[in-house]
């Protein structure tokens, strides 16, 4: 009876993971396919689609733009979220429904709507959108994720550590630098990494708010797909997928990040 339950659980989980991850393996496979169309039956192995990415300058330059936007917006999001998480955890507040609703709002409002609002705000102010607009909306959109991860860190943080540092002569900022931040390092790194990737692969916000100078990689992919889909796009996607997997595994091994406690 118990054995059967375990076997069924294994089978079910295998199916679920197949469903969740399966489609991406077809992208991986297609990126190595010698066939020039997408989708296509598998013909043979080649690396030429990866080589071809280098011929498309717009992919490389937009990847750099994406990196910049992601770096700045994640730094902002994590900083804001860390401060908020500190206030929530240290204040030991009773569940404040309005506060948690406000802090979760960026997760619940569709990104398309958020970006449309910023677009209209910009035109109302007679300004063009661009790098900093992207950064702002990416950062706001990422605050709930960063907050979630830093709050998990604070849940295991003993605030007596700060009191101990203070009683030993450390000022508020020194206590943060010497104790709070180092102890919570892994949550901060995890928060930053997740925000970085979420921002790097984000399409809807960038689609609305990017100007010609700040076209991000997903926007370039989007406009590429509008005209044609070929295995080169699969190669770009495969790189993104492998990077995502690699970064997650590094987080697991080096920083022992736990998504659930």
């Amino acid at each position, binding site marked *: 009876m118990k054995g059967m339950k375990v076997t069924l659980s294994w089978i079910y989980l295998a199916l679920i993971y197949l469903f969740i991850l399966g489609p991406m393996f077809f992208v991986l496979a297609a990126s190595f396919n010698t066939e020039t169309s997408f989708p296509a039956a598998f013909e043979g192995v080649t690396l030429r689609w990866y080589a071809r990415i280098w011929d498309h300058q717009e992919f490389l330059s937009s990847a750099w733009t994406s990196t910049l936007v992601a770096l700045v917006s994640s730094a902002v999001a994590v900083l804001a979220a860390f401060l908020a998480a500190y206030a929530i955890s240290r204040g030991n507040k009773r569940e404040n429904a309005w506060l948690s609703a406000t802090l979760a709002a960026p997760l619940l409002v569709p990104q398309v709507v958020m970006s449309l609002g910023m677009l209209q705000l910009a035109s109302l102010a007679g300004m063009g959108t661009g790098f900093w607009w992207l950064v702002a909306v990416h950062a706001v959109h990422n605050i709930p994720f960063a907050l979630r991860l830093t709050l998990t860190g604070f849940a295991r943080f003993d605030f007596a550590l700060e009191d*101990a540092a203070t009683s030993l002569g450390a*000022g508020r900022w020194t206590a943060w630098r*010497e104790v709070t931040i180092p*102890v919570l390092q892994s949550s901060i790194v995890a928060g930053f990494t997740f925000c970085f990737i979420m921002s790097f692969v984000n399409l809807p916000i960038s689609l609305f708010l990017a100007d010609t100078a700040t076209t991000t990689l997903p926007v370039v992919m989007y406009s590429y797909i509008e005209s044609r889909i070929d295995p080169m796009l699969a190669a770009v996607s495969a790189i993104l997928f492998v990077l995502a997997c690699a970064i997650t595994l590094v987080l697991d091994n080096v920083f022992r990040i736990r998504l659930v406690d």
Partner: protein
Amino acid sequence: MPDLKLTNITKRFDKSVAVDDLSLSIEHGEFVCLLGPSGCGKTTTLRMIAGFETANSGTIELDGMDITRLPPQKRDIGLVFQSYALFPHKTAAENVGFGLKMRKLPRADIDSQVKKALDLVRLGHVAERYPRQMSGGQQQRVALARALAIRPRLLLMDEPLSNLDAKLRDDMREEIRRIQKEVGITAIFVTHDQAEALALADRIAVMSEGRLMQIADPTSIYESPANATVDQFIGQVNALQGSIANVEGHIAHVAIAGGRYISGLDRQIPAGTPVLAMVKHERVFLSRLQPAAGENIFPCQVEGRTYLGASIVYRCNLGDQAMTAAVPNHPAFEQFQPGEAAFLHWASADCRIFRQ
């Protein structure tokens, strides 16, 4: 001159009063326990002395200097926390040296003082270990060494033994007392455990609902509590309700339910006043034969028996009153079974009378 002086300290949180008009002074080199049930304000008092909370009114003086509004990092007060609060990312030596580093001492001085502090708590050999590589007792001693390394003017300890198991707790108790004497530092120790307070303290300050009930040496606290609250909190006590009938010399007679009279030490309470008469469990004797003479002799029925090893506790029924007697588990003392008839008696000197 007292080392630490608290004058009329009051602390409110929102609407509740955590500490109410508390005054307390502690002499140099003294070991004082703040004792009371949880929520009595003892931890808040400690945190105000340490500087983590600011009193709404009143002053705190240390060595004659007003420190009421001084930030905690400038107070030079060593603190030992219930959770130890050792920095998990620093070794034992780095933990102990933290306060010295904050004081910007030269490297060599830090090293030698860290070594001295670790030797004091007999942990020189774990200097390079991280907290999670040490046992609870070791962590506790590193925390103590860390608090002492800054040569504080005062050592505060907040329930430092409550996370240790019973045997270790007894050892650490001795250890803390030894170190405190060796260093000659004034110490305040917060606890809710009366045995801990009785064993450790030069003086015990009993707190209840934010107020200081009594401060005295352990014997006085136990044998001559200042009021019913202290009496009830320290040790196990029988409390009998009644009213003063008359007074003869040092002895007051109290009328209790069932038309009985008991006698206890007079406190100059006028006749007719409702009072509580208190006798500790172990001061109540139980015997089969009626004692030949004396006060407070009542026939009773043994109703319950609890075997505690070192003593046996009997619940007895006097008709309208229930009383408990704790009898040493020793061949010199009689033993009883539930249902037996017996006589309860106690000396008037062991019975204290308080206004209700």
